[in-house]
């Protein structure tokens, strides 16, 4: 049932984690991190249904949001080095 889905997700998490640990470049890791975020989000949703308390989807939303922020931060860091850099932004952005 849901438990099976959870197990599948768990396996996927494990694989992604292996990539995150092994990944030769930092981008691999960031990619894996992003995927792990998504998988964890799904996991949460499934656990919510598993325990019969789907209200906890708030948490999943939070994961989704933070995932983006985290990934963008990592990227920005590796792209420009500086988190506060406006990049090539022109006015009117």
């Amino acid at each position, binding site marked *: 049932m849901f438990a099976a889905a959870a197990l599948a997700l768990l396996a996927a998490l494990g694989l992604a984690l292996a990539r995150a640990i092994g990944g030769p470049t930092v981008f691999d890791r960031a990619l894996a991190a992003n995927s792990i975020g998504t998988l964890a989000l799904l996991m949460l949703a499934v656990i919510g249904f598993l*325990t*019969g*308390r789907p*209200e*906890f989807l708030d948490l999943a939303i939070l994961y989704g949001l933070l995932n983006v922020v985290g990934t963008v931060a990592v990227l920005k860091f590796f792209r420009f080095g500086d988190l506060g850099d406006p990049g090539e932004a022109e006015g009117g952005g």
Partner: protein
Amino acid sequence: MSVAGHFASHYSYWITFVLMVAGLYIVIARGNLMKKLIGLSIFQTSVYLLYIAPGKLIGGTAPIVAPAFKVYSNPLPHVLILTAIVVGVATLALGLAIAVRIREAYGSIEEDEILAADRDGGERV
């Protein structure tokens, strides 16, 4: 209780130890100031499990009262750990700030280099 049974029933604690020891090991063994801080936060994270895992009741649910549920997990550890997380992030932020300042003052965040710099510096002005 048999050893295996004991192991199973205290599983959560074992994980806590492994995390804790890994974190502590990083703190003590690593010379890089940033890594030390990360190790420190892992060390603190392990404590979260130590508190929260025993609060769980199998068949229980999160402590948000609703008519459909009778058994809830223990909310008190959650409260404590919320506070502990906050303390952890505060410590992390401060530690990082100090590390940044150290980097600016010494030009390095490797502990041995810093100590060497101080030793060579000899008499301060």
